[in-house]
C-alpha cells in the first residue's frame, strides 16, 4: 500500500496528531518499546521494517513531495507527527541521515532522475545513508578537508579518509564530501556525491563508542570510482546549496527530541513512583531538580514551535537554527546526569520496572555525551551565535 493510501486510513476529521497517536499505540511492537522489560537490541532489518511501516502510515516524510513518496504536507503536520513520535518510547531512526540530511539536499540540488531514484528508497528504507563529511584533520573545520576527487573519463576517482561516519557499516549510500582542488582552496571546489558503499575501494571499519555500540566508523577511500550521475549538483554549487539547506534543517530535523526528552523524564518519574522504597523523589532537592528539567523541556518546545512558526510565516531563520540544538543538547545532558544519579540509588533487588528504567537511563547518559559533539559541537554553535547573530567584533 502506498504511503498516501495508508495515511488516508485516518478518518476525514481525524487530525494528523490523533492519527499518529492511535497508529503508534496500536502498532509499536513491545520489543521496540524502550520502557518495557521486553525491549531488546533490535537488528537493522527489524528496525528498517518498522521504519518502513511508519512511512506507509504517513508518519515519515510528511513534508516531502508526494511524487517521491512523501505526504505533501506542511511543517505544521510534521510538527504534529514529531510530537507523537517523541512521546512514544521507540528507537531512534537508523536512517536519520537519509531522511534529514541527504533527502533535503537531494531535493535541493538533485537532478530529476536522482530524486526519483534516491528519495523513495530513503523513505521506504531500501537505502540507509551515512554522512561522509568529517575527516581526521577536518572535524569542525570542514575547510581542512583532504579527500580528493579527480575527474576522469570513467567518472570521479576519489582518494581519502572519512571518520565518525555514523552507521556507515549498515548504509548503502554515503553523502560524501570531497574537494576537486588543493587544500588551500578551503571552501572552494567542494563536491558532493551519493557514493554507493559497496563500490570497490571503499573500506569501512567500525569504531566502538563509549556506550559499547559500534555505530560510527572510519571509511577509507582508495581509488574509488564514482560515476558522474552520482554527483549531487556541480562542484561548488552542490555544497553551497547544501549549507543553505542545512541551516533550515538544523532547526526542523529531529523535532521530536523535545517530546522524547519528556517521555524519558516521565519514564524516570513513574519508575520511581512504582516502588515506595525508592528514596530520591522523597528528597526535595531531587524533586526540584526534576521540575527544572520539566521547565527546560517546555522551554525547548518553545524554541521548536516558535522556529517552526517563523518558517511557516516565510521568515528566514538563518543561524537561529543553532539555538534549539544547543539548548537541547545541554539540557538533555543535565537530565541524563541527574537521571543516572537517581537510578543509581534504586534498590539492589529492583523490580522489572526499576531495572528497565535504570538500563534506559544508563544508555541515555552515555549516549548524551555525544550530543554536545555531533552536528556541530557546543563550541561551534557558540561561535555561530557570537559571529552570526551577535556579530561581535573579533579583531582590534
Amino acid at each position, binding site marked *: 500500500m502506498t504511503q498516501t493510501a495508508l495515511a488516508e486510513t485516518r478518518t476525514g476529521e481525524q487530525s494528523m496528531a490523533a492519527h499518529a497517536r492511535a497508529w503508534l499505540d496500536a502498532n509499536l511492537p513491545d520489543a521496540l518499546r524502550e520502557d518495557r522489560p521486553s525491549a531488546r537490541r533490535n537488528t537493522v532489518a527489524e528496525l528498517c521494517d518498522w521504519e518502513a511501516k511508519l512511512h506507509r502510515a504517513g508518519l515519515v516524510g510528511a513534508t516531502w513531495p508526494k511524487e517521491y513518496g512523501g505526504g505533501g504536507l506542511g511543517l*505544521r503536520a510534521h510538527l504534529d507527527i514529531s510530537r507523537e513520535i517523541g512521546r512514544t518510547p521507540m528507537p531512534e531512526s537508523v536512517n536519520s541521515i537519509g531522511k534529514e540530511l541527504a533527502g533535503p539536499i537531494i531535493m535541493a540540488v538533485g537532478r530529476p532522475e536522482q530524486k526519483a531514484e534516491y528519495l523513495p528508497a530513503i523513505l521506504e528504507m531500501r537505502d540507509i545513508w551515512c554522512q561522509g563529511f568529517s575527516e581526521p584533520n577536518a572535524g569542525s573545520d570542514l575547510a581542512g578537508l583532504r579527500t580528493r576527487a579527480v575527474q576522469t573519463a570513467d567518472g570521479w576517482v576519489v582518494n581519502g579518509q572519512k571518520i565518525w561516519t555514523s552507521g556507515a557499516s549498515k548504509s548503502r549510500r554515503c553523502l560524501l564530501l570531497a574537494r576537486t582542488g588543493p587544500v588551500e582552496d578551503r571552501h572552494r571546489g567542494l563536491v558532493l556525491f551519493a557514493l554507493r558503499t559497496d563500490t570497490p575501494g571503499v573500506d569501512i571499519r567500525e569504531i566502538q563508542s563509549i556506550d559499547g555500540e559500534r555505530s560510527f566508523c572510519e571509511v577509507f577511500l582508495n581509488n574509488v570510482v564514482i560515476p558522474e550521475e552520482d554527483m549531487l549538483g556541480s562542484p561548488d554549487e552542490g555544497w553551497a546549496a547544501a549549507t543553505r539547506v542545512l541551516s533550515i534543517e538544523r532547526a526542523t530535523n529531529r523535532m521530536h527530541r523535545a517530546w522524547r526528552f519528556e517521555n524519558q*523524564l*516521565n519514564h524516570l*518519574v*513513574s519508575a520511581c*513512583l512504582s516502588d515506595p522504597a525508592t528514596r530520591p*523523589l522523597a528528597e526535595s532537592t531531587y*524533586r*526540584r531538580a*526534576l*521540575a*527544572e528539567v*520539566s*521547565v*527546560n523541556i*517546555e*522551554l525547548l*518546545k*518553545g*524554541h521548536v*514551535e*516558535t*522556529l517552526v*512558526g517563523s518558517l511557516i510565516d516565510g521568515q528566514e531563520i538563518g543561524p*537561529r537554527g543553532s*539555538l534549539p540544538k*544547543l*539548548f537541547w543538547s545541554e539540557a538533555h545532558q543535565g537530565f541524563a546526569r541527574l537521571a543516572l544519579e537517581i537510578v543509581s540509588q534504586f534498590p539492589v533487588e529492583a523490580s522489572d520496572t526499576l531495572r528497565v528504567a535504570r538500563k534506559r537511563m544508563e544508555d541515555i547518559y552515555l549516549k548524551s555525551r555525544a550530543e554536545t559533539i555531533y552536528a556541530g559541537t557546543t*563550541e561551534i*554553535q*557558540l*561561535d555561530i*551565535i*557570537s*559571529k552570526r*547573530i*551577535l556579530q*561581535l*567584533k*573579533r*579583531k*582590534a
Partner: protein
Amino acid sequence: MTTDTELNPEDFVETARAVTTACAEAAGLPERMDLLAEAGLTGILAPEAVGGMDLPLGFAMPVLRSAGGGFLAAPLLECMLLARAFAGVDDALARAIVSGEMPVTVAWSGVLDGTSGVVGRAPLAEACARVLVLRADGRGVLVTPGEGAMVETETTLDLERPEARVRVTAASGPELSADAVARLKADALVLRASLILGAAEDCLSRAADYAQERVQFGRPLSANQSIQHHLARDCLAVETIRNNIQRSISPECAVPAAAARATFVGAATLGARVAESAIQVHGGMGFTWEVPLHRHLRMIKALAAQGGAADLIEAVAADLLANAA
C-alpha cells in the same frame, strides 16, 4: 472594537520606547502615569467602554518589554491588568486607572485570612492610590491606604518599583472574583516575562557593546573566545525567553498554562543569569552603581519573587509526579 488585524503589537514598540524615555525625565509617579495614559498604554487591555483599547495580551508584551529595558518606574503591568479586571465590576474605577488618575498596584505575596492580615511585595504601593490584596478564598479586594489598610516601607531590591508591605485590619473596597484573580495572576506571568526580556536584552546589548569597545592586551575583549561564548550563551538565554513568550500566546500552543508557567520560571532564571553575566563582562565597572546593570538584576529578582518562581517550581514538581503516577 479594535481588532488585531488593524494593529500589530510591534506598532507599540516605538511609542512605548518614547514614553519610557520621557518617563525617565518625569518628576514623579503622577507625571509618569499621565504620560503612559496619554499614549494609551495603561488601557491597552481594558475594554473601550472604560476608555481602553481592548487589545489582546500580545499587545501588552512589547510595551512591557520596552518598559523593562528602559527602567520604567511605574506599576504599568498592574495598571494594565487591574483596568481590564475592574471593567464591568466598577467602570468608574477602571476608567480612572486607564486615564492615569488612579495609579494602582497589587500585593503579589501573601493572602488575607478573612479581612485582615499582612501582605507584601506590592510594587510602588507607597505612591499608589489603591492596592489589590488577595484573600485566602481566591478573591481580591482593592483597598485604599489609610482606610483599614496601611502601607509600610520595606527594604527592597528593586529601585524602580520599590515594594511595600500592606497591613490590613479591615479589608474593604471593590472586589474581584476568584476567577478574575486567577486570570490576572496567570496573565501576569507572561507579562512579567516580557519585563524581564526587555531588561535581559538591554543587559546583553550593553555587554556586547562594552566587550567590543574595551581594549585590553591590544585587542577588544570580544576578540577573546571566552567572552564570545559568554555572550553567545546570554544570547541563547534571551532568545529562549523571547521564543517562549511567543509560544505562550500562540493559538497553536496546546498547553498555554504550562507554557506560561515555564516561560516565567525560565525568564526569572535566565534573565537573572544574563544580567549577572553582563556585570561579569563589564569587570569592575559592572560592579559600580553608575552602570545600571544592577538595576535590571534587582528588578528581575523582585519580579521572580512577585511571581512566586520558587513556588511555581514546586507546582511543576507536583504536576510531574501526578502525571507520571
